[in-house]
């Protein structure tokens, strides 16, 4: 149980960390490649790009999370099959 608790906590910690990096990357990357004026150029069009990228990263993180949990279940099913 303790192990489960720690791994669940680690999972959520990891998730928060990833989300934070995603946030920094999506706003930081654009800012670095040409200063703030780049984001404001073309009528602030790149703000829309950054928003879409952030949402996309969020959905991908959800997929990664789901993938990991499904893998765990698959392994468990495999082990149960062997035990029988």
């Amino acid at each position, binding site marked *: *149980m303790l192990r489960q*608790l720690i791994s669940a*906590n680690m999972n959520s910690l990891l998730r928060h960390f990833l989300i934070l990096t995603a946030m920094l990357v999506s706003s930081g990357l654009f800012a670095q490649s040409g200063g703030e004026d780049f984001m404001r150029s073309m009528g*602030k069009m790149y703000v*829309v790009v950054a928003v879409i990228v952030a949402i996309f990263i*969020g959905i991908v993180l959800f997929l990664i999370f789901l993938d990991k*949990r*499904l893998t765990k279940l698959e392994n468990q*099913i495999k082990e*149960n099959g062997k035990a029988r």
Partner: protein
Amino acid sequence: MVKHWWKILGVALLIFAFTAGLLTPIRPGINDIQPTAVVAGQTVSLTLTGYNTDFNQEQAPKVILWKDGDHIINALGVSVLNSRQVQATFQLPTAFPLDEINELKVSTSDPANGFITALPRLRISGMEKGGEAAASAWTGTIENTDSKGGFTFPYLPNIYESVRNTFYHVALWFAMFTLFTLGVIASIRYLLTRNVMFEQRAVSYTSVGILFGILGLITGAIWAQYTWNKAWSWDIKQTMTAIVLLIYGAYFVLRISFEDSDQKARISAVYNIFAFASIIPLLYVIPRITESLHPGGQGNPAFSRGDLDNNVRMIFYPAIIGWILLGLWMAQLNFRMMKIKERLLENEY
């Protein structure tokens, strides 16, 4: 295939929201007038700088200074500097018939760009109240007052192209709220029936709701960085949303901390109802009564009247449905995984 119709519909609506939302042009506008202030009675030359405009010399725009439909001054001469800039010369009268005035609207009209009223007003000093005698100077006319045709988005100061975020950032909040609502309904049904399936549904809806909430907060911060110049300004709406997400975050902490699955389900269902109840004051009442940078500061928390153009609505509403359906799909995947996990614990595999 048939039972997946709602997933296909959701994806189709989102594809529509992404293509139409990104390809539709912004209506032409004028965002700068130089000089910004003039003195009555003088001859002035104004340089107007447009956004998304396509001025050309052959069909030079008609430029007017005006107070209302009955009081218009036509430009003496107009020259197009480039597709973005127009220079217009005006002979300013010394008096206005009805009142003392200190600002005038500036508009242009031509076939390519339609009728555009500049966002800034022209400040004017020394304009006196002149009575009927002054009326002769204000008899200018303008023929075409239709704005540019075709499907376009409004030109908003400071927002410009990022008006498109309405379909991604704003619509995501609507989807989040729908998911939380479905979550709390499932929690209530769990408490009524004690069927663990409803509890699993509640968890799935709520977790996707939280993901959308976090994304809403992040996308909001990105948008805020370039409109308010500060990603996080402790604005009432940002702060209250962060509190709501923390309350919901505690829902999952709560779930981890119980070993007995029955107890876990019961307590988290009750907590979910509490968390949902907290949304209403935090997101829908407090932001209405305090000042905020966010649109619709007082009144509706998301929009002020007139923020949403009809053309924006035509993409905004499908986008909301699209995000909701995508959220439901994500929640359903999570729910199916939880069902497998439960059966695995009962040694059915």
